[in-house]
């Protein structure tokens, strides 16, 4: 059956008739308190899947916490089943004491929680007008993560002064591996076992993953089983054949930080809006630090105004922004640009082309996203070609 979403969009859905024809709720006793809460049968928010990933429905979310079961997924050999009672993390290589930690060991170390985003560096689609925020950049999500600082474990095993990189290895069928500079461990790397208040979900690395705040998602190796300290990178497939990109005549490698970016999630395709007051909403984030400003243009980039940021504004975190706008009913283009605490302003596609050449693409694309609002109120993505 067809019905209207709470924003007014027509969507296809399968709600049981029994639910829709429910009796007057003031005259029917409902189910008693339960062991586990439920989701309303009227809500149909899901990830958009491909063979290798599934994307967070950014246009359907509120605030900045992504529900754990809507966190984007990218894996290379599916989601492994790992028994937490058999789980062990090995740390070895250029260390004084190679050690093995069980999950219970990891949970007993001094712990830290932080809210930060993860984003796949391949998070960019640009093909056609009928793309949703989810399709354009749904490979980013945010959680409150809890775990132990990697520096705490490195202190425990005694990392040797000459160790400059470490290999992080997963226990999935891809035995995923990435080389990470040791400096990130002293900065803010974490070994996390919890997400949004509970154990990490299997899709996000249960029982333990590496978390490198602000860095391309693939480096936060999931289902972590081993760390090896080394004096050089390992040049794994995921840091040579993948996660590298053409910059003019060279190939850029070890491009870790996610540059500042933002997206307007309302109004956005497939919404249809009416003339009058509209609160433009979206999220902005930067892998280099805090968002200090988000600017909005409602005239196709000619003029820009500051949006309101939702407190608390956190380091390397999705930050909500809002901008109150009165739409007069004429066709126009709306867009947002993020500015981070390093002074970086989210670029246009043309600025990226100027910096990287026309062969860029695939990874670390963060151009301003523009939405065209037509006279009928329909909102369409504005794809831009660059080669």
């Amino acid at each position: 059956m067809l019905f209207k979403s709470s924003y007014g969009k027509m969507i296809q859905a399968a709600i049981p008739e029994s639910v829709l024809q429910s009796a007057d709720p003031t005259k029917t006793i409902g189910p008693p308190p339960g062991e586990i809460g439920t989701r309303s049968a009227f809500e149909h928010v899901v990830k958009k899947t491909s063979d290798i990933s599934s994307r967070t429905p950014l246009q359907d979310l509120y605030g900045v916490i992504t529900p754990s079961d809507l966190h984007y997924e990218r894996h290379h050999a599916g989601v492994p089943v790992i028994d937490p009672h058999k789980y062990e993390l090995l740390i070895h290589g250029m260390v004084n004491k190679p050690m093995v930690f069980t999950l219970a060991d990891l949970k007993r170390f001094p712990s830290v929680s932080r809210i930060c985003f993860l984003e796949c560096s391949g998070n960019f689609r640009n093909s056609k007008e009928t793309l949703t925020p989810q399709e354009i950049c749904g490979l980013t999500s945010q959680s409150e993560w809890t775990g132990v600082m990697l520096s705490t474990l490195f202190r425990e095993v005694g990392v040797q002064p000459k160790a400059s990189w470490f290999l992080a290895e997963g226990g999935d069928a891809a035995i995923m591996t990435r080389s990470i500079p040791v400096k990130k461990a002293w900065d803010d790397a974490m070994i996390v076992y919890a997400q949004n208040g509970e154990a990490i979900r299997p899709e996000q690395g249960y029982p333990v993953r590496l978390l490198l705040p602000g860095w391309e998602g693939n480096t936060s190796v999931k289902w972590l089983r081993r760390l090896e300290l080394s004096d050089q990178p390992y040049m794994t497939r995921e840091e040579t054949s993948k996660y590298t990109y053409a910059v003019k005549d060279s190939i850029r490698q070890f491009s870790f930080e996610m540059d500042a970016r933002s997206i307007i999630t309302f109004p956005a395709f497939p919404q249809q809006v009416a003339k009058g007051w509209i609160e433009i909403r979206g999220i902005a984030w930067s892998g280099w630090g805090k968002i200090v400003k988000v600017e909005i243009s409602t005239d196709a980039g000619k003029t820009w105004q500051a949006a309101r940021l939702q407190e608390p504004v956190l380091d390397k975190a999705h930050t909500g922004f809002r901008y109150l706008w009165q739409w007069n009913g004429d066709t126009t283009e709306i867009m947002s640009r993020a500015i981070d605490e390093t002074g970086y302003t989210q670029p246009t596609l043309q600025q990226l082309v100027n910096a990287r050449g026309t062969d860029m693409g695939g990874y670390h694309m963060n151009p301003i996203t523009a939405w065209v609002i037509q006279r009928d109120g329909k909102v369409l993505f504005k794809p831009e070609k660059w080669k």
Partner: protein
Amino acid sequence: VLQDTANWPATFGLGRPATQAEIAKLDIDVRPDGKGLPPGAGDAITGKTIYMAKCAACHGTGAEPMDVKLPGPALMNDSAGADRNKLKTIGNYWPYATTIFDYVRRTMPYNAPGTLTDNEVYSLTAYILHASNIITAQTVMNAASLPKVTMPAKKLFVPDNRHAGPEVR
């Protein structure tokens, strides 16, 4: 600073020392300098037979037209000559030959990872390198020879030159 460690003990006494045996069991990585390569050897001729049996179904033989959609990416067809921006293959895009050994051993064949012997992986690596016009059919790949193979794309790779600040790079 996320944690003040001033009052911390020298050790929390958690975890246990790792034995050499358990390290060896997991320590399967291979570095560009050859560290981690196991004993054993293989060549392209042996590798071709294994490849046809265990890999070609997903990656193709290098002979089909490119418009057939296969489960795995093309590894070497046209690679040496192909435009890197259209088709990234081992011959035109991979900077280190050791990566082939490391990756194939840890995760291929996709549907049966961890089933190849080290000799098979050496042979497959030799076959892929030869089919990419990088080594001859006779060159034996082992712990000594593999790190010495120079990959055509190596010179293109540069470390990230972005840094904190306003510049778009």
